[in-house]
Each structure stands twice: as structure tokens, then as C-alpha cells.
């Protein structure tokens, strides 16, 4: 079936998820590096939870973006042929 197609691009939900997780990752990473007092550390049992969660979020965000680049969503232009 020959139909015109294009990529979903910004409407790809993976880009949305990746962006929000990435923003959260940056904020938590910075908080973990610069905004963590000894009292904060004691609260979470000595773990720098902001730092580690920040790193994990950034890795997840990167995975979403890479995934959406490698396997873009292809949208057919004509609804009836989709």
C-alpha cells in the first residue's frame, strides 16, 4: 500500500516523557550536589537520594530520547488508510 507517511516528531509521547524526566533529573542532581545538608543525609539514612534519583532519571530520559530517535513513530497521512 503506497501511502504518504511522516514521523510523529514532537507528538511522540516518548519525547514528552523523556523531557520531563530529564528536567526532574537535572533539578534533583543539582539539589543532590549543592543543596544537600547533613540533616538531609541523615533523614534518608545516609543515602544521597536526590543525587542517585537524579542520575537514574537522566539515564531514563536519555533512553527515551534514544529510543524515539532509533524507532520513530510513523504516521500515515490519510486516516482511512491507517
Amino acid at each position, binding site marked *: 500500500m503506497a501511502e504518504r507517511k511522516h514521523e*510523529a516528531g*514532537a*507528538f*511522540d*509521547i516518548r519525547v*514528552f*516523557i523523556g*523531557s*520531563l*524526566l530529564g*528536567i*526532574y533529573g537535572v*533539578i*534533583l542532581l543539582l*539539589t*543532590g550536589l549543592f*543543596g*544537600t545538608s547533613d540533616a*538531609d*543525609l541523615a*533523614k*534518608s*539514612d545516609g*543515602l544521597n*537520594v*536526590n543525587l*542517585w*534519583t537524579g542520575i*537514574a*532519571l537522566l539515564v*531514563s530520559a536519555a533512553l527515551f530520547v534514544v529510543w524515539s530517535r532509533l524507532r520513530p*513513530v*510513523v*504516521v*500515515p497521512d490519510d*486516516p482511512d488508510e*491507517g
Partner: protein
Amino acid sequence: MVLAAESQLRLDANWIDYLLVAFYFAFVLGIGIMARRSVSSSIDFFLSGRSLPAWVTGLAFISANLGAVEITGMSANGADYGYPTFHYFWVGAVPAMLFLGIVMMPFYYGSKVRSVPEFMNRRFGPTAHLVNAISFAVAQLLIAGINLYLLASIVEILLGWPLWVSLIVAAAVVLTYTALGGLSAAIYNEVLQFFIIVAALLPLTLVGLHKVGGWDGFTDKVAQGPGGEEQLSSWPGTALAGFDSELLSVIGIVFGLGFVLSFGYWTTNFVEVQRAMASSSMSAAQRSPIIGAFPKMFVPFIVIVPGMIAAISVQEIVEFKETGQGSVEYNQSILYLMRDLLPNGMLGLAIAGLLASFMAGMAANISAFNTVFSYDLWQTYVVKEREDDYYTGVGRVATVAATVIAIGTATFAASYSNVMDYLQTLFGFFNAPLFATFILGMFWKRMTPTAGWTGLVAGTAAAVTVWVLSEDVTGTIAIGGQGGAFVAAGAAFVVDVLVSVLVTVVTAPKPESELRGLVWSLTPRKDFHDPDEQELAWYQKPTILAGIALVMVVGLNVLFA
């Protein structure tokens, strides 16, 4: 009582936390605006919706349910009962989702209906349709009230506002969000919400486990607690079911909770089923709930386990569990755990996750209500054949009315200390007889339209009667707690089947020609399969995926037995 309890719990949020919450709102509204803009310029949005891979519809499927029920109710049950709470997932939800994908989805998708009540209309005619549509609409209002109550209690804890102010403000926020985001953005927001909830609860669980000394420290402390070793094995779950007899408890859990309540909920609830019905092919529709089952079986580890951690590490809840005294509620286990363990930053992420979950839950209830009210009730029975704009207007009014009514039901929900009791009770009233009627109607061609509605009414009445007689209300019969709901659901199922069979014998069935696609024996097998099903890869075949999920969930049941 509730006000006093909550005035003691405060989370010390600072500007970083509010920033994280603000970003979440920006994204939710952003998705709504982008969706609307792209819809006006082209039909991209709907198309990319239709061409979304199955993992998205699968996640949206469980996300629509990942609201108050899972997070607050299940962590409360975890804190209260321990491992037996796993039954809600591994005996309840997961098998039911697999059953929906394999057995029931072919009927829903194959008959091309747009809603669950519409299937009822095609199979049994207008009376059964009316009963179903009205009871569904009422249930949605009640459940929206619970979601609103939980949302308002978080706002109260966060900002220190009185509960009634929080209720009204939270309702206004949801109303705006529903109006702006619209139904078209629902699936996107649900998928986003799933990842935010995981990002919020997984670190909380890991820090909690670290705090209590790892997995070994966790099991040791739970065993030494007031619940004892029993809370570390899921069977027989006598404390959860509220029966003294172990055998009755197992029967209650398997038949009442598993077969009737969960199958009823997951296979007939329009809010869930709609996600799968919107797929592009039969096999994709079948795959949605089956793919959703895989993450679903691991959700208890980030919901029930933190509840249990709260019950052994948060001082107030430990005392409450030992003595039964104190002003805390199990419903707040996760909030207390957040207060104790999370520094600013991570705290904001956790708050965003909880707000996301309750808002999406309430938005889903309200929009499902207004769809069924506008089309299944108003357009079908009250004012017929007006122009499309008129019904959109009706939908708007219904949305506002539903929000106002939800504020009322929220006040009602607040008088229960364990929200799960309340929810289970409602599902028993509405979903259990529905499941019985659907299963009979799908596999027994003789079943008549009159039997369809009388069975439903009798089943629901039986559930209400048992509930009124149980300890929850009058205490005439000695079953309380979750067990009352299991028995009410079981009674609804049995009475529905009996009444349906008896009424069918004395009334006239529908002509067989009208039942193609609605009844198993009258539908050609090819209607139940895609033409190209043989060409699918093994991981795209619903039956193979469901088999893998079944083996995994049996394994989990054995591992934590």
C-alpha cells in the same frame, strides 16, 4: 475525627518541591494544548494515537486505574495486613486482565461497540442498558468523590488548608484540567503519569528498605510486629478476609476477591476497557490488557511494600498498629513515609507523583461519567436527535454537576478509615452482577433481554442486602472488614446467575440473527481474529504473551505464599 488526624501531619515542602510540582502541571497542560493545536491543524494527533505501539495502550490501561485505589488503598492494606494484600494483584487484577484480553475482548472489539453499556444495549436491549448505564454513572460519581477526598487531603497536608477548602480548590483544579486537557489528551497524560509515579515510589521504597536494614531487616521487623509471621505469607489471609476459618478465607479470596470482584472490575469497567477498544486491530486490542499485566504484577512492590515499611518504621503508625490508639490512619502510610525519609527535591517528585495519580483518577471518572451520561442516557432516552453541539453542551454541564456531586461524596468517603472497604463495597454492588450477566450473555444464546436486566437488578439488590446485614452497617451477620465485601460480591454473582436462568426459561429470547458478534456460538470464528494473525511474531501473539504472564504471576504467588 479526620480533621484532627490530618492537622498533625505536615510535609516541609520548599521552593524546589513546588518547582517540581509546577513542572508537572506545565507538562500536563502542555500536552492538552499541543493536542488541541495539532487537532485543529491536522488529524495528526488522532493518527499518532491510533498508531501508538501496544506498550502505550497497555500502560494507559493500567494507569487509568493507578489512582487512589492502588496507592493509598493498597499501601493502607499493606500496612494493616501485609503480604495477603498481594492477592489484589496476583489473584485479582492480573488474571482478570489476561481473561479480558483472551476471552472478552474479541466480543467487545468484534461487535464494534463504542462503550460497555452499548454492548449491553445490543445484547439485551434498552432496559438492561438503562440499568447498566445508570449504575455505572452513579458508581463513577462515588469513586470520583473518593479520589477527590484523597487529593484534597494531600493539598491539606501540603498547604495546611482546612479539608473543606482543599476539597473545593482541588475540585476546581480538576475541572480546569479536564476542560483544558480534554478527553483526547487522556492517553498521553496517563502514560506520562505512570512514569512519574514509578519515579516517585521506587526511590521511596529503596530508601525505606535501606532504613529498616535491607530485605532481611524488613522481614525480621514485620515478623516481630503485632501482625506476626502471618503478614509475611499471602495465604490463607484470614486477617484480610475477616473469616476465622482458613478454608473459608481461601474460598473468599479466590471466588469473592479474585473471580467475582476483580474479574467484574477489570472486564466490565468502561474506563479501563475503552483504552483497549480504541486500538487499531483485534490483536492490538487483545494485547493492551495483556501487556499491561506485566508492569501490573510488579506494582505491589512499590505500593504494598512501602505501606509495610511505614508500619514498622514510622513511629505514629507503629504505635497505632500495636495499640489501635492514635490519630493516624493507614491511608496516610505513604505520606508519613515520605515525611520521614525524603529530603526536599525528592519530596517534590513524590508529591507530584501522588497529585498526578489522584487527579488523573478523578479526571478519568468524571469524563467516563459525562460520556455515559450524555450519550448513553441523555441522547438515547431524554432528548433525541438534536445537533452535535447540543450534546457537547450537555456534556459540559454534566462535567460541572459531576464535580459538585463529587464534593458531596468526598465528604461521605472521609468517614471511612479504610478507603478500600468502601471501594470494594461499591465494586460488589455494580461490577459483580455485571460480570455474571456478561459471561452468561456471551456464551448462552438463549438468555433473554428480560433475564439481562432482572439478573442485574437482583444481583445488585443481593449485594446491598448482604452489605446492610454485615458488620459494616447493622451487624446482623458476623462478617466485617474486606470479608463483608467478598461475601456481598459472591452473593451478587450467584443471585444474578440464578435469576437470569429462571427468567430466561419463561421469557422469549432475541432472534439469533441479531446476536452475531455478541454470542460465542453464533459468531463465525474468523470474526474473532485478524486476517493476518498467523503472520505476527511470537511476542505479538496475545495467547503466547498471556501464557508467559500467567507463568510469571503463578511464580510470584508461589514465591510469596
